[in-house]
């Protein structure tokens, strides 16, 4: 489990780019302060395209780099470390995996590769991640389908050119059979978009479908067989979110460890206090473990291994727990200054909370570990 030379080169290119162009002051804080409706900069999305990153897992035959989850995760760890707002995870990773191999891929991949297109995933209908619980109804109507129901936590939903909507064409909520995935263009009649700002200043939409008409060719994969592309998207999204959470944990910890070496209290550097040293050392170890879990999950996904789904659940749960520990220790060890908006450490806490819920919380994924292990 060491990186190949090519993977290392990719990381060495992306890290300084993200630390500079993706820095908190230049992106996150900037877009928040001017009240940007997207919560991210399209300029950076275009830059990522120029670096070949928006098409990182798009097959070479379709204009992409044809790389895998391990490579996407290297990018995501740097995005997490710098809290860089971008549709990379949802569009370049999860949506690309959902669309790959379908007729809809030909329609949307060129825009994604060029950095012109943003995609979003509309899966959850309640406050907690529960992809099998899809109830939004899609009825056959003329040559196509008519969608009725509601979705929430559709990250970048109001900025998206296409929204992948999980709908029920058969069966009932809780069943994985009978779900169909639709690629719905942003201007589809009968779809209402409410743009909501989240805690971390990113944007997620609440969508209402009121007899929204879509063509039959909007179906991604098979009618009633949407669980397959959805699972691909979720595995990639979860593994990617784990890597981004590792980045968030590492960025927060690095900021905190630096602070321990600078801040004086009681006439000493606070990093000299054993109570803080031991907590810092514990945190360091947990981050390394979470990073290993995320890497293992990505490698298994790329290898098409049967254990991939289990390891993805482990990685998302572990990275979530560790990132939470890191941001909590970060704010606590920074003391009063950590509570101020002026200091960046608080941004890490807010981003962690959102990423933790996205694609399933540690509780959800612990339950998945039990289910997949058969207990």
């Amino acid at each position, binding site marked *: *489990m*060491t990186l190949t030379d090519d993977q290392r080169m990719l990381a060495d290119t992306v890290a300084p780019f993200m630390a500079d162009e993706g820095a908190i002051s230049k992106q996150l804080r900037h877009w928040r302060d001017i009240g940007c409706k997207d919560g991210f900069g399209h300029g950076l999305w275009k830059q990522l395209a120029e670096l070949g990153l928006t098409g990182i897992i798009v097959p070479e035959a379709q204009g992409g780099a044809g790389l895998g989850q391990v490579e996407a995760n290297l990018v995501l760890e740097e995005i997490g470390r710098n809290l860089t707002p971008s549709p990379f995870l949802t569009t370049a990773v999860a949506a690309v995996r959902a669309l790959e191999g379908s007729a809809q891929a030909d329609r949307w991949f060129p825009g994604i590769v060029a950095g012109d297109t943003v995609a979003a995933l509309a899966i959850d209908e309640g406050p907690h991640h529960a992809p099998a619980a899809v109830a939004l109804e899609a009825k056959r109507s003329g040559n196509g389908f008519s969608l009725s129901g509601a979705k929430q936590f559709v990250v970048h939903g109001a900025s998206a050119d296409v929204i992948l909507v999980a709908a029920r064409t058969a069966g009932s909520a809780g069943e994985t059979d009978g779900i169909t995935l639709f690629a719905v263009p942003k201007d589809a009649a009968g779809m209402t978009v409410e743009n909501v700002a989240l805690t971390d200043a990113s944007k997620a939409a609440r969508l209402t479908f009121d007899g929204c008409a879509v063509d039959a060719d909007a179906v991604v994969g098979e009618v009633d067989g949407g669980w397959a592309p959805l699972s691909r998207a979720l595995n990639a999204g979860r593994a990617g979110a784990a890597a981004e959470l590792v980045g968030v944990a590492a960025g927060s910890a690095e900021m905190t*460890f630096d602070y*321990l*070496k600078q801040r004086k209290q009681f006439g*000493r*550097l606070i*990093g*000299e206090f*054993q109570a*803080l*040293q*031991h907590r*810092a*050392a*514990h945190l*360091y*170890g*947990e981050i*390394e*473990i*979470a990073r*290993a*879990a995320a*890497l*293992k999950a990505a490698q298994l996904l790329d290898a098409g291994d049967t254990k991939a789904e*289990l*390891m993805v*659940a*482990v*990685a998302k*749960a*572990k990275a979530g*727990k560790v990132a939470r520990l890191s941001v909590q220790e970060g704010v606590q060890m920074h003391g009063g200054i950590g509570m101020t908006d002026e200091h960046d450490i608080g941004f890490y806490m807010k981003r962690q909370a959102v990423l933790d819920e996205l694609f399933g919380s*540690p*509780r959800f*994924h*612990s*339950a998945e*570990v*039990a289910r997949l*292990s*058969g*207990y």
Partner: protein
Amino acid sequence: MSDLEAFRANTRAWLDANCPPEMREPMKGEKDICWGGRHFTFQNEAQKRWMEVMAERGWTVPDWPKKYGGGGLSPAESKILKEEMASLGCRPPLTSFGISMLGPALLKYGNEAQKKKYLTEIARGEIRWCQGYSEPGAGSDLAGLATKAEDKGDHYLVNGQKVWTSYADQADWIFCLVRTSTESKHGGISFLLFDMESEGVSTKPILLISGYSPFCETFFDDVKVPKDQLVHEENKGWDVAKYLLGHEREMISEMGLGGGAGSSTLGTALGGVDDPYLKAEIAAFDVDALAFAAMSERFIDQLKAGEAHPALPSMMKYAGTELNKKRHELVMAGGGSNALEWDSERSRGGKAARDWLRTKANSIEGGTSEVQLGIVAKHILRLPGA
């Protein structure tokens, strides 16, 4: 087929042909571990044959050089051997402190004669070693040791006492830290090897809260140790000790997976859990355990590639042993009153309870968790004054 694929196929075929069926059953307890050495009683003929046939091939120590009894395998080949043994369920043919601790230190610091003699004996399972590090007055402050070795021309005269010497009563030889100078704390320590049957050596078992006694007190009373049994240079034993400790921590952190967290989850090992609260706790533990298993794999690969930070074993030791303690807390919780039976047949002699109590030493032995965290704070995080 690539060379490695061919190696994998050949290895699998050879293991399948040579590993006796009894040696593919999961180990039932401590007694199934093959320690080798002059006093070791093999469980059965299969255990003996398995050790010998693997030693013959150099695969008791697959990555050591062939001239010292090893297999001469590359890191990639060693990994394949390990994977193939795991997939066929082969037990380790030989477990010893010679393999996991002394051997690597001798490979780095021993002279040619020492390597030739001791490494070969270790690889064949002929000599069982124990470690003479801790002392009653020193504990985790290892360099605070007092056992004295006086220079008597052709030999050293050793006097003092060691404690927590694992299996000293069953070991053939000891690798031992002694004080050869009092001028500096770390710079006055030497690393000696000697026979436990030497005149003046005696041991006494220490009974533990688990009812087991793997540990001993070991006493040295005017023990004569020939000078050619000094490893590295006089007063430079601390270099050897530190290097060896890194290996000990690797070994302990791998053993932290004790019940095989890498291969099956605790929830499945317990055969399912009904209580929803306990189930949630166990699932959360399994997340941690499976993540740690990934870290262990990565750690070993990093070590072999020379990419691991020298203080990383401390992090692994800390995390692995804390995890193992948590695992056994949960096993006890899952077992309820069944697990509390100390001597009954149905509790297999109180195995769960004794194992649980044994794990409490994990975060003490080989340097306490607090010592490991201090090392990480100082050497990796570079925190001030650490």
